[in-house]
């Protein structure tokens, strides 16, 4: 029957048409034609262009026999006027099409961060391939140098290392999981400021920053740490932005304060002054009990912010002649811990407001509840008023006991 034949021919033509149409996208997205970028670095090059570095991993070295050798990483850099131009050039150079879906880390150098990175952030967020959970690292060295020295110690694939390192902040508090999604949110939000992980390479500089209240605690930050060993990248501390410009850095203890206030830390180690001995310190492992209660009041046009934290802890260090089951002793240690934490938190908060004028803690979001309409809030101009803020920090911690031994 001619009608049936016509129908069959029509169906065949339709299938061929659709095959041809979709095959173009197939050839772009098929895994055989992809080279997977695991990290990206953005620097400023000589001619005021961008130098974009791409880090690849040779996937064929991951064979099924379970090799214990590390998969080598390959870094290519290109000078271009924008990120998309850079990707275009790399595509020509490599042959396989560059795919950013598995890019775990985007590194900006300190230089370019001081200039402002909003264009690059907007471009990257607009890309369909970039994951919102990609980490942002601001490197004290050049981004390419950082990527070259990014070698995992215990993993074979560098992607595993990239996935894991930002999570260390949940048990130390010395780094945070700064993602590009959060960065973009904070960038366009009028009530908070963005931040990034501070990255650097060990053994690179002798700069040492101290803090008045914390002589014994680790006050290191990236590129200035006291670690010695193989020259690898380190990610300690935070980079603080105001809008899209880098305005300052936080060292490890300040990052810990940031993590406490943002409730991003599950437990951390501090050295509180020993109440019974001068110049002596007790190591405590502290765990937050509840999310810190943050209240923002507007008094005479200036913000008055109260932070109320509650912790529980255990004593980690032991010394000769100590008796940690005595309730008096525990009370004294708790009080010492409270005052210590209050002092470092207050110092940190005043640094963000007075020195940096950057509300990376997100107090502006809580402040919004004081305004009835969005216009009122915008007119208040929180980002300028933040530097006039007053803080009151209350810490309530109960040190329960030591770990296995009760006295020595």
């Amino acid at each position: 029957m001619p009608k049936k034949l016509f129908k069959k021919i029509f169906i065949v033509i339709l299938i061929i048409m659709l095959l041809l149409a979709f095959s173009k996208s197939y050839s772009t997205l098929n895994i055989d034609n992809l080279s997977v970028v695991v990290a990206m670095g953005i620097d400023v090059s000589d001619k005021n262009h961008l130098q974009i570095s791409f880090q690849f991993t040779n996937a064929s070295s991951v064979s099924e026999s379970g090799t214990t050798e590390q998969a080598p990483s390959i870094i290519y850099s290109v000078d271009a006027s924008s990120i998309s131009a850079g990707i275009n050039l790399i595509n020509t150079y490599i042959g396989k099409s560059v795919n950013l879906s598995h890019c775990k880390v985007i590194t900006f150098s300190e230089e370019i961060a001081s200039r402002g990175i909003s264009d690059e952030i907007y471009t990257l967020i607009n890309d369909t391939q970039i994951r919102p959970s990609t980490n942002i690292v601001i490197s004290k060295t050049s981004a390419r140098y950082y990527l070259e020295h990014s070698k995992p110690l215990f993993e074979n694939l560098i992607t595993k290392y990239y996935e894991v390192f930002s999570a260390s902040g949940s048990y130390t508090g010395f780094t945070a999981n700064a993602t590009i999604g959060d960065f973009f949110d904070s960038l366009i939000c009028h009530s908070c400021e963005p931040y990034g992980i501070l990255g650097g390479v060990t053994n690179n500089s002798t700069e040492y920053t101290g803090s008045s209240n914390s002589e014994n605690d680790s006050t290191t930050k990236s590129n200035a740490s006291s670690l010695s060993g193989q020259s690898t990248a380190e990610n300690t501390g935070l980079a603080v932005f105001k809008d899209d410009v880098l305005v300052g850095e936080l060292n490890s203890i300040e990052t810990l304060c940031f993590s406490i206030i943002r409730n991003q830390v599950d437990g951390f180690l501090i050295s509180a002054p020993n109440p019974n001995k001068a110049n002596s310190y007790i190591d405590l492992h502290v765990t937050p009990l509840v999310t810190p209660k943050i209240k923002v009041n507007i008094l005479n046009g200036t913000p008055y912010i109260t932070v109320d934290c509650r912790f529980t802890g255990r004593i980690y260090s032991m010394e000769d002649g100590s008796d940690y089951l005595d309730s008096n002793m525990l009370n004294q240690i708790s009080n010492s811990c409270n005052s210590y934490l209050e002092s470092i938190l207050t110092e940190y908060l005043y640094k963000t407001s007075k020195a940096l004028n950057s509300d990376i803690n997100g107090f502006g979001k809580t402040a919004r509840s004081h305004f009835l309409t969005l216009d009122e809030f915008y007119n208040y101009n929180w980002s300028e008023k933040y530097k006039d803020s007053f803080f009151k920090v209350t810490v309530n911690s109960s040190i329960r006991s030591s770990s296995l031994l009760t006295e020595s």
Partner: protein
Amino acid sequence: MGLKDFLSSLFNYTPNHKETYNFNLVEDLNTKIYPDSTLGNEGIKKTNIFPSVTVNTDYLKSKYNLLINSDIIFRDFILNARGKQYHALLIFIDGMINTEIMNEFILEPLMMRNKNNLYDNSQNRVISEAVANNITVRKVKKFNLPNYISSCLVPQNAIKQVSTFEDIISGINSGNCALFVDTLDIAFDIEVKGFKQRGIEKPSNEIVIKGPHESFVENIRTNTSLIRRFVNNENLIIENVNVGNITKTKCGVCYISGLANEDLIAEVKFRMNNLDVDSLLSAGQLEQLISDSSPLNTPQLISTERPDKSASYLLDGRVIILVNGSPYAIITPGILSDFLSSPDDKNQKAVFSNFTKFIRLIAAFITLLLPGLYIAVTSFHQEILPTELLFSILASRANVPFPIIFELLVLELSFELIREAGLRVPSPIGPTIGIVGALVMGQAAVSAGIVSPILIIVVAITGTASFAIPDYSFGFHLRVYRFVFIFLGYLCGFLGIALGLFVYMISMCDSKSFGVPFTVGVSPLEKVKGSSYFLPPMEKREYRSGFLNAKKETKQGHISMKWK
């Protein structure tokens, strides 16, 4: 052969005497050699039996082509009845009758002189007597030879009087013997079947752990006896329907008369009585002949070789069809949930059987969709894969020369080849084919770099999942349609699979099986009593399947365990 002959054979023209054997069945496809035979087109015309044995003999001799047919036996003898002797004829087919029964219970009582057939007609039986005016009027029962033969002479359990040749011939063909007696225009169809048949064995394709281990055989009477033993109720009706113009295959339509919906029974019989086919040789053919049309070629009737499964569906209100010569029963109607159920589900606790039903549901999805999803993900959506898995896939594919779609199609087709080959291999080396085909070839292909190991795993999981589908036809349907989804996944990734899945679901929801929607009970939001996919606990299975509209709604009391 001399030199002369040799030379003459070399240089002389010697035509070849021997003609090559050239047999053609049909010289020209357009010309008919024979006019259309009327075989099977006899229609409903019936020929009555003649009172004379000689005429009947000639008629049947020509019908059965006695001169060339070697196993039809005509046995003439003299029948003694009531002191009179009649010319009689027995006709049967050698090999289909039990000779002992025939000799002892038919020939002996009829031929031998015994007290049964030595009555003379003077002893009439008086029914009633009336005396009036000294005249006695007696009502006497006249001697009826057919009744006498069937009631007094032949001690055989099943004997039927028929009056047409078509009925007697169908009796002879099925293994009975026919008795013709002179002066009678009826014949006796006597049950003496004694052909060899397969004994009742374990089911070969539907294996259960806890249920009975009997299966149907080819003989319809044995099968009906198996069902009757399970149902054990006089309301079980087994109606006979003959299908096939030439073979007149006996089919039994079974239902329980107080339960089954009358419209369903009528529809089944209507469809079976209106089939214009020459022959019906198996239940599979009958299934195809009476099924509704389905655009997706899903099976619409359940085929089973288990009598317990048939009995359980009978008690649910469905109609079973048995076909003589086929060890499979057809259950009407069949819905989607039935094809994913095993007969063992009701024998276990509800929790365990629901767990296995859930596994089977996942197996059905995997069989249909896994290869398509794999190719969609690797072609368009690789961001779903964890980075390490993506690198493993890339590494394993580094040396493979073919694109993924080609690899996948080659592997799937090889798997189908191995499966088909496994069916035909003689049993001693059957398992070897599985090992050789699957393991060695697969491993060798990976080592040679022709396919990637991850694809082997995908194909193997798909194949294993397809074996988990209880119903063979439904598993076949899923296996065929997975190729459609492979193509759609290759064409446009998840968009193609989603659109294909939608068309698939709509076609399934649209199809009906004997008036029942195919996907009834699949959606958890659609409340049809007694027909959800997952089984409730035993004490809550109160209702029969609601979509059947059976005559009795409940099959258990509200509190079935009265002892608790």
